[in-house]
Every structure is written in structure tokens, then in C-alpha cells.
């Protein structure tokens, strides 16, 4: 019979060296954190209110994080932000779950056993980085740094500078992928082909009409809350009219004055028809006609405005509303009415997002929208779609001499997949690795990214990532054990955004830049480390120090180097206040109209290109001589867009629409010789997706969408958010459902060329017939207990398991969506998948 004496005898016999006793110390430690104070409404305890920045989505809203008794208890909006005015969405508020997720990875992990077996061992940071650095250094020393592929999902602002501009550039690898092709690459490429550097800010503050093609801005957007709350204010306070074209009644469509259902992938036909109406009915006259001076609509240099009008009319002649009705299902009269409305409501904001552009030739849809905005005079004007304005930070640039980057040509898609992938074809990276003809990386490293879950063809992604013959070594940095981390060789525990530094610069809808920072609201949990700090250490270990001690120091230095921030009070000011904008700054519009002073273009190295009227700096473009520059020409000189100075129009040199990524002129190029050279129609036109033309009578088009309470792939571990949204369904119209004998709630099988999934049907008139819609966010099989239902030991109650009342975690549609590409931009064609839908139990 055991008694206390036996237990105490153990204590008596323990060697002192075996004891722990390292966690607690005698003295109370003091610490100071920047920020204000607040009090708990329930306990009355003092809380620390620390200004920081969100990272739940790319909007990166400034926030105020409340710390009570050493823990993060609440996140709210930042009232001093001119971007958000203190608003904060559910995702941002639910971000407390990133900090407190009981399934967070707190230590570096090394796999033991087979890749994907789920067997791990904790290792020290020293052990993990010794191995990673040794492997990376070996490749660098051998002259093959490109065999390290770095793939990020979300990496912005100071993180991007530290990790990409300093670490990866000094390491020497250019084999770098991102996620843009699964996001809105078609939109960005479409903008680069037309008005230059991407991002359109929607100036809802000043608009009198909104015409929306495929954006669900009230639920999800890259500048979500800053734009959404402005739109709601405008709709409610000024009662402006908003018309949304969407395949489904999203919450944005529901809040609009009118929802116009449209067949998936046909928005471009509607837009072209609206352009037809605007031109034919003379509705371009006035601001539209004035703007045409800055628009290229023909080959060659600068015809008169009348010639441009004639060219547009000629091109658009066949794109009548009646023609568009046959393709899109939108009645011709409706097209005419809306076209007249948008052209006569001054100003109007014409907006577009994935619903319109994540399709075959989606980049051309964005070009068509730019056309409609151009001919109605709603470009870069108050109330229109404007060139984005964001904070421009100055920062330490690191070593002056960088190695010349080498890269494996595996980020721009399979051969022939896309002709102008200015943002890469990232979802085909794994296929390219499998293919091997362009080489394979020996190390595949990813950060804030989930190659398995976020791309299409999930099984293919798993199979390739698991295969050590294809990918010899894999490392990821992630605070959480997601479907991709499960297949890594080493997991480095990143901090969630609640515990790290950074400067931020996201677009300001006020057209006035806002500088803001992120700061740790609590000490990093466990041994998690900001990956930027890890990269700084890796560089030290490999013998090419970056000249920066850590991210905090980088931020402090950036605050000193950035004049506006320094003048405000630098790092200390930013820590205490979180946000800064110049109170005297005026909103920026009409940037293209700025007339350049002669000293800008009458200088050594700058020449005017006779073919385009572009002034460019041939020396900056590394051309040997002015003669060579004039012979070869601006358009065909490699990366000459970086040397752009200005655009000559009618004898005046303007700032113009500065090019980015492609060598376009300073015009708003609706006619693109760049696109033409690649085999596409130079002006926005119409070609249907081949598989849509070949659809059988039983086929449907599957589309996908986001909800307001989750982000694409990395919020399902936030329990408050997943409690709200954890299960999805297949939206299908009653007409479509009846044809297939499907009732609301029935389990159905959705089958595509890439596989099949089963999911419950939601029969609703809120979606066009012939279509089925399944959201993102669900169907996780990792990512912790809330996301996947994988509880701690089976059969035992976890503290929280009573509260996990939901039984299903939904279905992930990406298993059956192809990793295909828009042939122009490489955009993943989320909304084009041809499927059959059958009630489960129905024979094939």
C-alpha cells in the first residue's frame, strides 16, 4: 500500500542535478509597453491599450490590442486611423484566437519517420537553424543558390523588405513565389497593361454611383474595412445607387440598390456592351472625352480624340446589348439602363474583383472595366477608381553589394500556360517541380503560405510535396500546424501578428498616406520567433550579415529615415500612437496630368522614343548608347519600364500613367501592342472559355466565394470565427435543383475533371441557374481542434469540447478545382470549373 512516506522517499533520493527550478525568480520584473490605458468593464482591472496592426487579411487595419493581466483579451479598431476610422471587422476582433490557440506550435519541430506521417521531435532553435543554414550555405557556396525556392503567401511591408529585399537578395536566390495568382493576378496584370502600377482605390467617400462587377467588398476585399465602411456610409447617408453584377446574392449584392444576376465568366460581355452604349449614345462626351487625350485606343502614337472615338465605336460595334444578353443572361434593356446610369452619374465608381476576373481571360475583363471607367471619365478622379496611395517608408537597405540573383524558371507556369504572368503562376509551381524540365529546388521553404490547401488540385499538391525525390528538403515558418506544415521536414514556429514588430503601408482610401506600425502586445509565446528575425540570424550564420540586429531595430531605423515619421516623433511616437498621417496633406488625384518640368526629361541619359512618345532614361535601362536606345526602342528594351520618365502628348510632357512590370507607354493603354504581340486581341474583346463552349446539357459551372467572418485559409483556428462559420454548402438555384431531383439539405456529389466532393445542397434563388457555388474556408483536416474537429485524446472531454457544438467542418472545394491559368495573366480560374452535381445515391 503506497503511503506518503514512499513518495517522500523519492524526493529524498533525487540527485540535485536532476531538478528543474528554472522558471521562476524571486524579484518582480517590471516592463513598460507603449500605448494607452483602458479598464475592463467587468472586473475593473486596468488594461493596457496597445496600438498595433492586424494581419488577419491583407488590409492590415490599424488596431488597438488590450492586454489584461499579461494576456491579450480584446482587439478593437483604431479611432485615429484615417483608413478605418476605428472600425474593425469580425476577423480582426477574432484575432485574439491566433494568440490563444491551444494548438499553436511553440517550438521548432523536426520530422521523424516518413514525411507526412505525423511523427515529430522538438528541436532547439540552434539545432534547427544549424541544419537549415548548413543546407542553404552548401548550395550558395556551390554557386547554385537558386536551388533554394522561397514561397510566401502573405509577406508585406517591413517583412517583405527584410526577408525578400535583404535576406533572399543577399543569399542570391531569385526563385521566389508568392500567392497573387490565386488571388487577383488577372486584375493586376490587367491594370499593368492599362494604367501601370496596380491597385485601384475606390473613392466611395466622394462617389455618386457604384457599378460593381464581381466584388463582394462588404465581406472580403484587399482593403476591406477601410473601403467597406465608407461604402456603407455613402449608401446610407447619401442614398447613392449601387448596382452589383454577381452570380449570387452576396451580402454586397444584398446591400446594393440592385442585384443583377449574371452567368459566370460573362461580365466582360456586359462591360463591352455598356461601352458600346456609352460610345454610341455620346455619353462619353464631357469628362470621358477629355480623358481620351490620355488614352491609347489605336496602334501607333497619338491620333486625335475624334479618331480615337471612331476607333472605339468601330471596335465596339458588334458588342451590342443584345449580343451580350445571349452570352450573359442579362437583359439588353438592363444593360442599356445601367450603362446610361453609370455614364451620367458623376462621378461614378466602377469596381471589379475576383467574381469578374478569376476566369479565362480575366485580365481582359479588367481591361474592359478600365475602358468603361475611361470613357465615362472616372479614372483617378474624386469618386472614381483611383491610383492607389500608400505610405512610402524609407528603410535600411542592407549590404551595398548584393550577389546577382539566379533563379529556376519554375514560377511562371507550365509552358504555354500564360503569356504575361506579371505576378507569376504560383499555383503551378508544384507542377513545375514535378515536371522537372526547368530544374527542381533542393530546398522548398514557405512562409505564411499553405501550398496544399490554398491552391487547386489538393491531392496533386499533397502528392508532390510529400515526394522526397521531387523536393529533397522542406522548411516552413508557421505558428500553426496546417495541412502544409504537416508535410514539412522542419517547422519553425512563427509568431502570430500579435507578437511581432513591423511597419505597414496599406493603401489609404482617403488618398492620403497613413504610416502605421505593428508591435508585440505580449512577449512571443513559447519559443516562437518572428521569421524576419530568423532570416537575420540565418544570414549571420551563413556569413553574409544584413547589418540589422532584429526587426525592432529595423523598424526603429525606418522611423528615423522616413521624414514624415521622424518629424512626427519617430519610433517613440509610433509606439505610443500606432498611426500617423500628415494633417496638412491633400488627397492625391489626377496624378497622370502632372506636367513635368523640363529638367526632369531634358537631361543626360533621357531620350524620347519616337514610336510611343515615352521619355525614358536609357542609361538607367543599361542600354549602351543613345543611338542603341533609339534603334531598339523603348518598348523592346528589357525592363525599360523601370527607366520611364514621362509621356509626351500634344507637345506637353506629362507624368502620365507610369508603367510597371511591362513596357507600356504613359497612356492609359486600352489598346495594347504588348497583348497583341502575345497573340491576343489588342483591345478588350470577347472569347468564351473553351470548356464553357463545350458544356453538356447536364453540366454546371462551379464558382467559389468568401464570407465576412473568415479569411481564405488561416483563420479557422480562431474559435469565435469558426463558431460563426464552420460549415459550407453547395448553393444551387431551385430550377437547377429540381432538374436534378435535389431538395434543400440533400447530400450531393459535385464532380469535375479533377475529382469529386460531397456536400449538402442549399437550394436558393440567391444564385443564377446553371451554377453551383461553394465557399472557401472549410474542410480543414488540420489547423487545430476548431478548424478540423481533431480534438485532443479521443473519448475524453477537453475543457472546451463542450463548447465545440458544431459537428461538421464543411467541405473544401479546392480538391476539384483545377490549377489552371488565365492565358494572359496566369490567374487561377477559380470561377470557371465545369462540374456535374448529382444527389448522393443517384446513379451516374
Amino acid at each position, binding site marked *: 500500500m*503506497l503511503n*506518503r512516506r*514512499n*513518495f*517522500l*522517499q*523519492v*524526493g*529524498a*533520493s*533525487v*540527485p540535485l*542535478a*536532476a*531538478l*528543474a*527550478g*528554472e*522558471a*521562476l*525568480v*524571486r*524579484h*518582480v*520584473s517590471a516592463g513598460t509597453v507603449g500605448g494607452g490605458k483602458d479598464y475592463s468593464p467587468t472586473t475593473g482591472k486596468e488594461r493596457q491599450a496597445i496600438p498595433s496592426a492586424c494581419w488577419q487579411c491583407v488590409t492590415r487595419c490599424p488596431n488597438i490590442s488590450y492586454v*489584461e*493581466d*499579461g*494576456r491579450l483579451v480584446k482587439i478593437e479598431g483604431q479611432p485615429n486611423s484615417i483608413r478605418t476610422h476605428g472600425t474593425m471587422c469580425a476577423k480582426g476582433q477574432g484575432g485574439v*484566437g491566433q*494568440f*490563444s*490557440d*491551444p*494548438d499553436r*506550435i*511553440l517550438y521548432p*519541430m523536426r520530422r*521523424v519517420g516518413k514525411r507526412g506521417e505525423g511523427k*515529430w*521531435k*522538438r528541436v532547439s532553435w540552434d539545432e534547427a537553424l544549424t541544419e537549415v543554414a548548413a543546407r542553404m550555405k552548401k548550395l550558395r557556396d556551390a554557386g547554385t543558390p537558386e536551388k533554394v525556392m522561397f514561397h510566401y503567401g502573405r509577406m508585406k511591408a517591413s517583412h517583405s523588405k527584410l526577408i525578400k529585399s535583404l535576406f533572399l537578395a543577399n543569399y542570391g536566390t531569385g526563385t521566389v513565389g508568392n500567392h497573387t495568382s490565386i488571388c487577383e493576378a488577372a486584375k493586376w496584370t490587367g491594370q499593368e497593361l492599362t494604367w501601370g502600377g496596380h491597385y485601384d482605390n475606390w473613392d466611395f467617400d466622394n462617389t455618386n454611383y457604384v457599378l460593381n462587377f464581381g466584388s463582394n467588398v462588404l465581406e472580403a476585399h484587399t482593403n476591406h474595412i477601410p473601403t467597406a465602411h465608407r461604402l456603407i456610409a455613402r449608401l446610407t447617408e447619401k442614398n447613392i445607387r449601387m448596382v452589383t453584377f454577381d452570380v449570387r446574392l452576396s451580402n454586397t449584392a444584398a446591400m446594393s440598390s440592385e442585384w443583377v444576376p449574371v452567368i459566370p465568366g460573362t461580365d466582360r460581355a456586359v462591360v463591352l456592351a455598356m461601352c458600346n452604349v456609352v460610345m454610341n449614345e455620346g455619353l462619353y462626351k464631357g469628362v470621358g472625352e477629355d480623358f481620351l487625350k490620355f488614352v491609347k485606343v489605336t496602334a501607333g502614337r497619338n491620333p486625335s480624340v475624334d479618331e480615337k472615338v471612331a476607333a472605339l465605336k468601330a471596335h465596339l460595334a458588334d458588342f451590342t446589348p443584345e449580343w451580350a444578353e445571349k452570352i450573359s443572361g442579362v437583359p439588353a434593356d438592363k444593360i442599356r439602363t445601367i450603362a446610361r446610369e453609370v455614364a451620367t452619374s458623376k462621378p461614378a465608381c466602377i469596381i471589379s474583383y475576383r467574381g469578374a476576373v478569376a476566369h479565362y481571360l480575366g485580365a481582359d475583363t479588367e481591361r474592359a472595366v478600365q475602358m468603361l471607367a475611361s470613357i465615362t471619365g472616372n479614372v483617378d478622379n474624386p469618386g472614381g477608381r483611383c491610383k492607389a496611395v500608400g505610405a512610402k517608408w524609407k528603410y535600411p537597405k542592407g549590404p551595398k553589394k548584393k550577389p546577382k540573383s539566379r533563379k529556376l524558371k519554375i514560377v511562371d507556369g507550365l509552358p504555354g500556360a500564360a503569356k504575361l504572368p506579371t505576378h507569376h503562376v504560383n499555383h503551378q509551381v508544384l507542377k513545375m517541380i514535378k515536371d522537372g524540365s526547368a530544374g527542381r529546388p533542393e530546398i522548398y521553404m514557405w512562409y505564411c503560405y499553405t501550398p496544399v490547401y490554398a491552391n487547386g488540385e489538393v491531392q496533386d499538391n499533397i502528392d508532390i510535396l510529400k515526394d522526397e525525390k521531387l523536393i529533397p528538403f522542406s522548411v516552413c515558418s508557421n505558428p500553426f*500546424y496546417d495541412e502544409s*506544415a*504537416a508535410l514539412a521536414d522542419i*517547422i519553425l514556429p512563427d509568431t502570430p501578428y500579435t507578437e511581432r514588430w513591423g511597419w505597414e503601408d496599406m493603401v489609404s482610401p482617403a488618398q492620403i498616406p497613413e504610416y502605421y506600425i505593428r508591435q508585440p502586445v*505580449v512577449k512571443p*509565446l*513559447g*519559443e516562437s520567433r518572428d521569421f524576419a528575425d530568423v532570416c537575420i540570424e540565418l544570414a549571420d550564420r551563413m556569413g553574409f550579415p544584413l547589418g540589422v540586429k532584429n526587426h525592432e531595430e529595423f523598424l526603429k531605423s525606418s522611423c528615423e529615415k522616413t521624414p514624415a515619421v521622424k518629424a512626427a516623433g519617430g519610433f517613440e511616437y509610433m509606439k505610443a500612437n500606432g498611426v500617423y498621417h500628415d494633417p496638412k496633406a491633400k488627397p492625391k488625384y489626377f496624378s497622370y496630368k502632372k506636367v513635368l518640368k523640363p529638367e526632369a526629361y531634358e537631361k543626360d541619359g533621357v531620350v524620347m522614343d519616337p514610336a510611343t512618345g515615352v521619355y525614358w532614361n536609357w542609361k538607367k535601362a543599361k542600354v549602351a548608347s543613345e543611338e542603341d536606345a533609339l534603334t531598339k526602342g523603348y518598348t523592346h528594351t528589357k525592363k525599360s519600364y523601370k527607366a520611364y520618365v514621362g509621356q509626351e502628348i500634344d507637345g506637353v510632357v506629362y507624368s502620365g500613367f507610369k508603367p510597371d512590370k511591362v513596357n507600356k507607354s504613359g497612356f492609359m493603354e486600352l489598346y495594347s501592342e504588348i497583348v497583341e504581340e502575345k497573340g491576343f486581341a489588342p483591345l478588350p474583346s470577347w472569347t468564351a472559355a473553351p470548356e464553357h463552349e463545350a458544356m453538356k446539357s447536364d453540366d454546371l459551372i462551379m464558382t467559389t466565394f468568401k464570407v465576412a467572418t473568415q479569411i481564405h485559409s488561416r483563420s479557422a483556428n480562431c474559435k469565435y470565427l469558426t463558431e460563426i462559420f464552420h460549415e459550407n454548402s453547395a448553393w444551387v438555384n431551385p430550377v437547377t435543383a429540381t432538374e436534378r431531383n435535389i431538395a434543400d439539405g440533400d447530400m450531393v456529389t459535385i464532380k469535375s475533371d479533377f475529382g469529386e466532393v460531397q456536400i449538402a445542397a442549399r437550394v436558393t434563388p440567391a444564385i443564377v441557374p446553371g451554377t453551383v457555388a461553394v465557399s472557401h474556408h472549410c474542410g480543414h483536416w*488540420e489547423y487545430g481542434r476548431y478548424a478540423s474537429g*481533431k480534438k*485532443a*485524446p479521443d*473519448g475524453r*472531454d*477537453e*475543457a*472546451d469540447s*463542450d463548447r465545440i457544438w458544431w459537428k461538421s467542418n464543411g467541405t473544401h472545394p479546392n480538391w476539384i478545382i483545377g490549377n489552371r491559368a488565365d492565358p494572359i495573366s496566369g490567374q487561377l480560374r477559380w470561377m470557371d470549373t465545369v462540374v456535374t452535381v448529382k444527389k448522393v445515391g443517384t446513379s451516374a
Partner: protein
Amino acid sequence: MPNVKPLFDRDELVRSAIERSRLYGLLAAVFRREPSVEFLCHLKTPELMVAFSAAGVDLGDEFGTDPFVDIADELAIEYTRLFLGPGKHISPHESVQLKRGSGILWGPETSAVLQAYRDAGFDVGENETYIPDHLSVELDFLALLANEESQAWAESDLDRTVQLLRLQHSFISQHIGKWAAHFCTKVNEEAEFTFYPAFANLLRGFLSGEKADTSNRINMTGKDQQPENGDNHKSVSG
């Protein structure tokens, strides 16, 4: 002045407090990290092996036969799987394990534990990476209190002794005692090897008597005051 008969054997109480402190320290070390080869060697000292046997602590057959290098490797994987993840694991934190608790890391329970440390004059070290309510940290706290208790007994500082006993009693009642037992049950269910269940059972067995034992010791001092949590108990005279 009335002649008060001593109710206790001071030397025995000093020794017993030291033993308890070391037992807490051992358990803290076991649950803090994977056992190193060096740690395994310490466990295998003859005196400790005899004590383990008497206390019903069975470290497994392989402990007697296999090379420590191999055992350490296997236990590293076991420790990771049981207590760290990634993925499904038994998170050894009060805020996660407490029934009807918050279920999250750094919940309000964690703050309360941290406050308990501070009330006792301790704090988490500046470089400490473990969350304050990790099992090993809570055990460290009890080890520290028991160690200070032994010094207080040695100095016959009964006021200090009672204070320290009261702190231990209240910490067991309000914190570790509320979740450690069912944590240990889970370890028994999930472990592949006998190592961690052995120490889990030792922890559960020992802790189950500690609340009463600290009350008894308070009574032994003759200081006639109730423990802070208001538990009813019978006075025990020596």
C-alpha cells in the same frame, strides 16, 4: 507564561519539506522537457530506483536494458507527441485543461496563476519561454515554496512557515489540484511507453495527499488560523 508542549519534530519537518521540494522539482523536470541522457542517468541512481520501486513508479522494462541514447530518442518523440504537438496533444497548461475553463492558451486562469506567483513574491524569469500555468512551472512554484518552508522550519519562524504552508495549500486547492489529476488520466490513456504514466501517477498520488498534509502542518505549529480558502478541517494535535 504557559508552557506550550511542542507539537512537532522540527528536524523531521525540515527534512520532509526538503523532500517535498525535491519531489516537486523532479516532477517539474520530467514534464518540462524531453529527458536527456544525463537526466536518465540521474534517474537510475540505485537509491532513487529503490525509492521509485517502493512508490510504485515503474519506468518500463526498457529502462533497465536499453541504452540511454535510444531511450532518450524514443522519449523525445513521445514527449513531443504527448505534450507539444504539432497537432493533437495534451497541452499541459491549466487554462487549457481545466474543466469548464477557458480552454485557450493564456486564459484568465493563466493570469490568476501568475498573480499567485507574484503574491508570493515570485515572478516569471525574463527569459522564461514557458507560459506561467505550464505544469512544470506550477510544480517549480511548489518546489520553491516547500524549499522556503524548510528554511522557515529550520529557523523556527512559525509565522513564515504558516504563510508558506498556506500558499501551498491555496495553490493546490485553487490551481494545480483542480486539473492535474485528469491531466494524468489522459497521459495514461495516450502514452505508448510507461515512462510518462509512471510520473503522472506519482504526481497524482502525491498531490492527492498534499492539501490535507499542508493543513496538518499548519495545525502542528499551533497557530490557530484557518487556511485562506476556508476549507473545513479538523485540528490535529501532536
